[in-house]
């Protein structure tokens, strides 16, 4: 209950941030600009609209999630609001979870708004909307939840700048995970092979959330896969939040 109350205030604070509004406007412009590219697309207009739109949502979503996540706890400490919260009988993990849920709600709102514009555009171009297009947006949201959790976790032990850098770094690593695993598997050294494999379990595989290729080629993705991917995203986020809770517990405020 306490976490939920905290979530609601965090959400209200988050959506009042100007940077979010600016990013949202840029996202709209970016997604809309796909209509301009179609002129150069060599007969692949719908592919361009879908690809630019989905990638735009991802990129702006990443920015939104990173900026929200990294500032959640440090600002509280800076503004000394945290004392008021911690003076109440509330566990520190509850604080982390509450703040995270509030930010997640804000990310959800942003994804919904971007998604509506994007789906409108696809419908305008294709006169239909394949379920896989909607599912791609859903998975993008869960991918962003993991990124948000990463940013929150890093911010509990690193400076703001460092947490942004780390979040971006791990995102890139995670989205290249398939290739890294493949290349690691081809290594001659068994030690390196094992290391890469172990590393693969620790680093989130963001490719799991990427069904953009299926959207572009109009291939259906089974519901059971979507369900499993969502579970994976939630588990990852939960694990990251526990780590964040552990660091926060140790932190002298």
């Amino acid at each position, binding site marked *: 209950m306490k976490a939920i109350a905290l979530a609601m205030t965090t959400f209200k604070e988050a959506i009042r941030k100007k940077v979010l509004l600016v990013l949202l406007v840029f996202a709209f412009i970016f997604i809309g600009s796909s209509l301009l590219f179609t002129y150069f697309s060599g007969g692949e207009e719908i592919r361009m609209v879908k690809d630019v739109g989905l990638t735009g949502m991802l990129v702006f979503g990443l920015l939104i999630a990173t900026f929200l996540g990294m500032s959640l706890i440090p600002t509280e400490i800076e503004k000394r609001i945290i004392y008021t919260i911690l003076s109440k009988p509330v566990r520190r993990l509850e604080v982390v979870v509450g703040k995270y849920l509030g930010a997640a709600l804000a990310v959800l709102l942003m994804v919904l708004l971007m998604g509506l514009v994007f789906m409108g555009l696809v419908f305008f171009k294709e006169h239909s909307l394949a379920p896989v297009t909607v599912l791609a947006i859903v998975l993008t949201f869960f991918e962003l939840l993991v990124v948000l959790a990463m940013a929150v976790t890093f911010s509990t032990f690193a400076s703001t700048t460092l947490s942004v850098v780390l979040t971006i770094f791990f995102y890139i690593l995670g989205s290249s995970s398939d290739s890294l695993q*493949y290349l690691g598997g081809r290594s001659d050294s068994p030690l390196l092979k094992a290391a890469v494999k172990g590393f693969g379990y620790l680093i989130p595989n963001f490719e799991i959330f990427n069904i*953009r290729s299926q959207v572009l080629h109009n291939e259906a993705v089974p519901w059971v896969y979507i369900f499993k991917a969502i579970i994976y995203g939630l588990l990852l986020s939960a694990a990251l939040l526990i780590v964040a809770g552990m660091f926060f*517990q140790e932190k002298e405020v």
Partner: protein
Amino acid sequence: MRGLSGNISKAQKFYLLALVGIFIIMVFVKKDIETDRIKYDMVPENLSPSDQVLGGLVGAFREITADYLWVTMDSFFHSGDWQRLVPTIDLVARLDPKFIQVWSVGAWHFAYNISVPASSVKIKEQMIRQGDEFLQRGIKHNPHIYDLHFELGWNRFDRQLDYQRALPEIEAAYAIKDHPHYVRHMVAHTLERLGRIEEAKKLWKQCIDEGDCSPAFGNYSRLLKGDCRTGVPMYKLRNRGQEWEKCLADKIEVPESELEAYYNAHKDLYMEPEKIQARHILLSSRAAAARVLERLEKGEDFAALASKVSIDKGTQEIGGSLGLFSRGQMVPEFDRVAFALKENHISGIVKTKFGYHVIKVEKRIPARLKSLKEVKTQVRDKVVDNKIQANVQRKLAAGYRWGVPEIKLEEK
């Protein structure tokens, strides 16, 4: 303080335990998802190590990078920048191997747009081969898409004249559901080229029976009449005049004596018909024509008079001149009178559907036989064509099922 620190470690223990629990579940979920991704064909297969490195570098932006390059590919094509087009096609295909368009458009660039204008036969040949290999790669990534099989079959049919290797690909496209109706037509065409006329007939019949009539009807009746195009390359039918095809024909050596023999045996083909050069004056009534005739008899110049009074807008300004023409180019009534006139003689009044003519013949060129020197190219084309036909028939009779087997390309 001690109590507090003991409390903390207790909480930490709980966190750690929870973390380990979640982690174990996650490993299983992830493994399960990874098998799913292979099962549902979500991970691009058959990627080379370099493709993997490329994929790793662009990560989540693989498709958008492919799209950017696709757009640049289009501009390289329009500016004719082949040097940059070729590697770009390759990159797009590596980034997004499921992008069907890039395989088919890429192969089209190789086999046609780059190959046709290339100046050297070697480059033409190499580009056609590259297009073939490129499509084979595309099929490896997308075995269940009819487009690529069909494209490869067409490439071999049209560019390589290799019907033997074209057939399995076109048949593979035909075996895939949701293929468009022209795929079946191409199977029939290929069978015909291979001399398997009965099978081709059966397919055309099947098309007609299923209501897919428009090209089927003509082809079926043609085959029934025994007019078969066994071994006849497509270009012979379409006369596209492409340099590549010319190269093929140029390969065949024809001795002068053979040209002469053909020329002597087919002189009727090289006769030039009788021609006359004439002027005319067109008038709307017989009375007006009679007045014109009177003025001409008084010695007025024909051309000058034509410019003044002729109502034929097309020739009035040039003194009624009709230039050189042979029989059959004018309406019959006109022809009959004009070809009967002697040089520099003027006709009477000739009535045609256009009105009333007065005709003057200025020059007569009798029918003549064109010299071999004048018609050498046409004679050579005929001889070469016959040679190809004979060659194919001989090979087929000997049991070969082959298109134009003896013509192989080498650098000239």
